Each structure stands twice: as C-alpha cells, then as structure tokens.
C-alpha cells in the first residue's frame, strides 16, 4: 500500500509552485482516511481528520519537488533551462525529461561523447548553462509545443532494490507524505481526540512558503514536521544516520525541547527505533516557517534517512516510512491523554 502510493505519487510531478497539476493522486489516497479536504491559496493540500476536542495537530510534509524551467528555445530543437530548487548539474547529465508544454514533450539532456572531449573538459562538471535539452524537433515545430516558462520534470521509473529499499525521484519529500498516510491509517485503528491536519505543503524547495500559509490557515497547537535527512553512504562520516534504523529526531533551537523529548519517550515505550541529530540552527525544512507562524507553533522535526538527496535516484527504506507513521500515531494518542498545556509550558 505505502509502496504503491509512493510509486504512483513519484511517477507524477509536483514541481515547486506547480503543485496544483496532479492533486487528484493525493486526494485518491488520503480521502478514505480523512474527513475533509481543503487547499490554501498557494497550493498546499490539507486533509483533516476530525477529533472530539478543540486541539489541532498539524503534520507537514512537502509535496513539491525540484524541477527545471525553460529559458530559451534554440535552433535545432534544443532548450536552455534554469532550475526550480537546488540541483547539482552533474546529476542532470544523461537524464530523460518531460517538458510540460501545450502537450507533454519528451527530451534528453546529453553531452558531447568522449571521442571529442578533452581530458581537461572531462575533469570539470557542467554548469546549468552548459546543458541543453534535446527534443528532436526543429525550432519551428518546437515553438508550437512549448513556451519559455514551461516546467520540466525528470523521468525516472521508481525501482525496487533489495529488501525494503526503493529508489525514485522526489522521495524528498514524498517519503514523508507517505508517512502521513500511514499515520492517518493507523489513527483509524487507535483512538485520537485532537483534530489532525495532514498537510502536503507547497513550495518547500523554493523557500518553505506553503508551510507558512497553510499553518496560518490551520492555526495548530503543535506542528510535526516531516522531511528527509542524509542517510549514510560510503562518502559520508561513519556515524551518519542509516537507512532502516528509524526516523531521525532533531534537537535544536527550531524545535520544542519538551515535545521532542516526549516523542523520544513514546518511541521507547512502544519499541520504535529512532536516530538522533543535533540541528542547532537552520533545519532546511518546513520547520523554518512553521515555528514562527502567527504567534509561534511548538514543533518537532522527524527526518526519514535518504541516500542521494536531490538526485533522480533518491533511495529510502520503506520500513522507516512505516514505523515513523505508526510512531506518530502513538505520539498523537499519548498527547491526547496528557496535559498538552503542561508539556508546552516553559
């Protein structure tokens, strides 16, 4: 179910600022477990699961992904482009893309073959301005199909690797949208008193903007921010968080310390593994906006360990998604049976 959702939602595109295009996919999966749906004016998707008290808990995971945008249409049917969000240009070489113009146009980003590339050139990475999308049309034909400003998404069929590892584009941050889906499902089984808002936020990659407007609209008592974290690979320090060992709980100034400790206690009580990470200041997540929304929202931040962030082969362990979703449901249930004011009181 989670894998099906992730493969489906990652085969679609929600480029930052253009999240409205494929909303049906989200609604299809969330509606069975939630009571109402609305959007904020920037395009965040808000699914509410109603409770029996007046408390509001907001879960936030961004639905948007990094993408490209046409800047020039060139002779020979080539396109120049800029990036929407942070790309390493080296990860774009040899990729297949879809241009969302008047109709979908297929393209590839190729480079000169080694036969006519000097040793010197091969040592350097390309810059975005050195790369072109080949559409295979003449300029005249292409101009009928696409315009400057049209968005471009990367093509990548999601893959199942060994065990419970899967790879696709945009697991940053749809892995966490899947976490919310698991929490919603789990809350159907165990009771909850608070109103829970599952928010697939817009425009995180371009500046955590959807989180700002959606949290204003919801006005929650607490926020649970979900994003992806750097999972260990051979080129990282040996003590980096690893895939398959549970969510990474963040500690630092952006996060409410008592709420964070409460989450750790709940995980211990129910035997959910967690990893820990110090984040003294910037988190690079929706927490940046959520924490200072209105008069302030106490937040916790959980990250799903992910390898190769911001590439088309982002890799996660489905097991981490599942246990994080379940742990959050338990956390909500425990909060409902505690004195929230006391926890939040400094």
């Amino acid at each position, binding site marked *: 179910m989670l894998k099906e959702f992730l493969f489906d939602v990652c085969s679609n595109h929600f480029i930052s600022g253009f999240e409205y295009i494929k909303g049906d996919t989200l609604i299809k999966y969330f509606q069975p477990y939630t009571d109402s749906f609305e959007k904020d004016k920037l395009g965040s998707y808000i699914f509410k699961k109603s409770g029996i008290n007046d408390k509001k808990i907001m879960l936030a995971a961004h639905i948007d992904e990094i993408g490209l945008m046409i800047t020039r249409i060139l002779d020979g049917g080539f396109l120049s482009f800029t990036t929407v969000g942070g790309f390493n240009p080296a990860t774009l070489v*040899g990729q297949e893309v879809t241009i969302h113009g008047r109709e979908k146009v297929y393209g590839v980003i190729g480079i000169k073959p*080694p036969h006519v590339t000097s040793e010197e050139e091969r040592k350097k990475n390309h810059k975005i301005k050195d790369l072109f999308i*080949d*559409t295979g049309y003449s300029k005249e034909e292409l101009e009928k199909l696409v315009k400057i400003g049209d968005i471009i998404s990367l093509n990548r069929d999601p893959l199942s690797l060994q*065990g419970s590892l899967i790879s696709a584009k945009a697991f940053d941050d749809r892995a966490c949208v899947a976490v919310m889906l698991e929490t919603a499902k789990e809350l159907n089984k165990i009771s909850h008193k608070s109103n829970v808002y599952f928010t697939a936020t817009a425009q995180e990659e371009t500046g955590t903007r959807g989180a700002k407007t959606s949290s204003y609209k919801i006005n929650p008592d607490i926020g649970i921010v979900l994003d992806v974290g750097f999972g260990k690979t051979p080129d990282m320090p040996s003590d980096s968080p690893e895939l398959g060992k549970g969510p990474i709980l963040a500690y630092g100034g952006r996060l409410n310390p008592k709420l964070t400790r409460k989450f750790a206690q709940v995980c211990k009580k129910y035997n959910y593994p967690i990893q820990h990470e110090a984040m003294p200041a910037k988190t690079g997540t929706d927490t940046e906006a959520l924490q200072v929304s209105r008069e302030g929202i106490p937040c916790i931040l959980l990250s799903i360990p992910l*390898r190769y962030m911001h590439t088309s*082969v*982002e890799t996660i362990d489905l097991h981490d998604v599942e246990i994080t979703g379940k742990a959050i449901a338990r956390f909500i249930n425990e909060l409902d049976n505690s004195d929230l004011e006391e926890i939040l009181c400094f």
Partner: protein
Amino acid sequence: MFLKELTELAGVSGCEYEVRNYIKDILTRMGCDYYVDKLGNIIAHNKGRKQKTIMVAAHMDEVGLIVSGIDSDGFIKFEAVGGIDPRVLNSKAVFVGEKKIPGIIGSKAIHLMTSDEKGKALPLGKMYIDIGTSSKAETEKLVSIGDYVSFNSKYVEFGDNLIKAKALDDRIGCSIILDLLSMKLDADFYGVFTVMEEVGLRGAETAAYRLEPDLGLVLEGTVCADMPEVDEEDKSTLIGKGAALSLMDNTTVYDIDLVRSIAKIAEDNNINYQYRRSSAGGNDAGAIHKTKSGAKTAAISVPCRYIHSPVCVASKKDIHSVLELTKSVIIENQKGEDHV
C-alpha cells in the same frame, strides 16, 4: 527494425550472450545459414549472385561497467568497459550481472558538497552501485567480481523521427544487417555480428581472417556532436542528414576510391549521405582492412548523439539511409556473371 528488442538487451563487451542468442533466434526463424566462431562472432551467409566476398559487419557489444569490488557495507565498486565519460553515470539506474539485479549509481547530496567538489567531475573510483543491501555478505550472495553491468534505459521514439536508447552503438548496425538478411537479396554477402569491438576490435579480426573478404562494409553508430555551442570541427556528423561515410579515423585510413564509389552509388540512388568530418574514434574497419594481405573496407554509419551514454539518440531517417545505401552497394558489387 529489430532495434527496440536489440537495444534493451544487455551485451557489454565480453558478455554478448543475450544479444547473440536473440540474433541466432531471428536467423533461425529467417532460415538463414550461420555459425558462431570461437570468439562468439555470428557469421551469417546470404547466398546469391557473387563477384566477390563481401563482409558486412556490425558489433553486438556495447560499453558498460564491470564489478571490481564490494565494500564492507555492500556497495559495489566498478570499472568502465569501453570508452565512458564517468560524468554520464551520475544518478543512473543499472542492471548488475546475468540475474539483472537492479541498482543505482547515486551521488552525494548537493547540500553536503564543498564548492571544490561541485566544480570537479566525480572520478570513476569514487562512484559505487547501490543495490539496496547493507552488508558485504548480503551483496556477495547476488553479485561477484567480474559481473557485467549494463545501463537501464528503455527504447523511446520522440521528436521528428528520432529514437533514444542505450547501445545504439552498435545495435543499429546489427538491426540493419538483420533487415538486409531478411530481404533475401540475390547478391551474396556475409552478415557478421562481431564481439568486443569496444575493447579493441577483437571479434572483427578473427571473423575477417576466416572470411578473407574482398570488400568489407562496417555498419556503425558514430559520433554526432551537433549540439549548441559545440565547435564546428567537433560536430563530426549531423543528425537526419543521411548515412555518414568515414574518410579517416584512429584505426583506418579508408580507401578513397571505395568511399567515392559508395558516395556515387548514394547519389545515383537518391540516398542521403554525408562525410564523417572527424578523425576521432575507430571501428571494426580497423581490424578488417588489415586482414591477411588486406581488404578494402568502408564504414557506413548512422549519426548518434550522446554515443557511449545511456541516452544515445539517432534518426530513423538516417537508419533508413544506411540500410538503402548498404543494400545498393552490395547489389552493385555483385552485378555481372556468376563465378562462385
């Protein structure tokens, strides 16, 4: 056209089994005589009117990777098989070994890269394949040193008559030879599907030794760098402008009379052609023309953008031009009285 099937098979140099088995199967169904030599080349014979021995060659192998090690966390180290710019490997899906274990080649998140790392190309030695295992023992159950790795890239038709696939160099040539054999022309030629071109023209050497051709025709996918901001002299060929005739490359100085005669046949038959305006690269002609006391050999190629990457691009129009031109050259050379 057998190109979709041919390009989606794995056939990294030295491991051409899948491609060979597919071609053998097609030849059997066509009722075409063939045999496989000691290196694994397929030599098929189209019997017909004959003036001379003509060898039409295309290589079955493609560039790829080979497993060179497995680290303690189960990640796979590799080396390149054939000429690959490591920059095309970043963020790609691959298949490892005969069981085709899916894997990916990722790279460090941009957030963690120093500005120095951002500018420098990642060398092959710093890349690894992730198949989703978490220990050396787990990976070793599925993968061994020496396993071949091929790109995971599907055949796609797009734009104005273009196709994208891996291994267009040289499944394009293999597909054209199969088309020629299926025509049952009354003109004698050997259709040769060679091995290990990308690692030193190994198969063509032994196949040519056996056939001792009077005329060699090499059908290739060749360099085409006609993209924006590439120097004019590096473009080599233009996509959609017809069959590319080689004049000189790293392995052959082509017999100019033969090249001109092929150009004339193209003109006489209204077939689009162009000269390959680069001396970079090489192909099986390099082995064939030096066979025994020598054999006149020409290379007729389809321009391929982004050659030696997972996303090669070629034009169906050019493929058609190479097919028509090769057919005409064979017929023209076997005209006259039979003296088999």
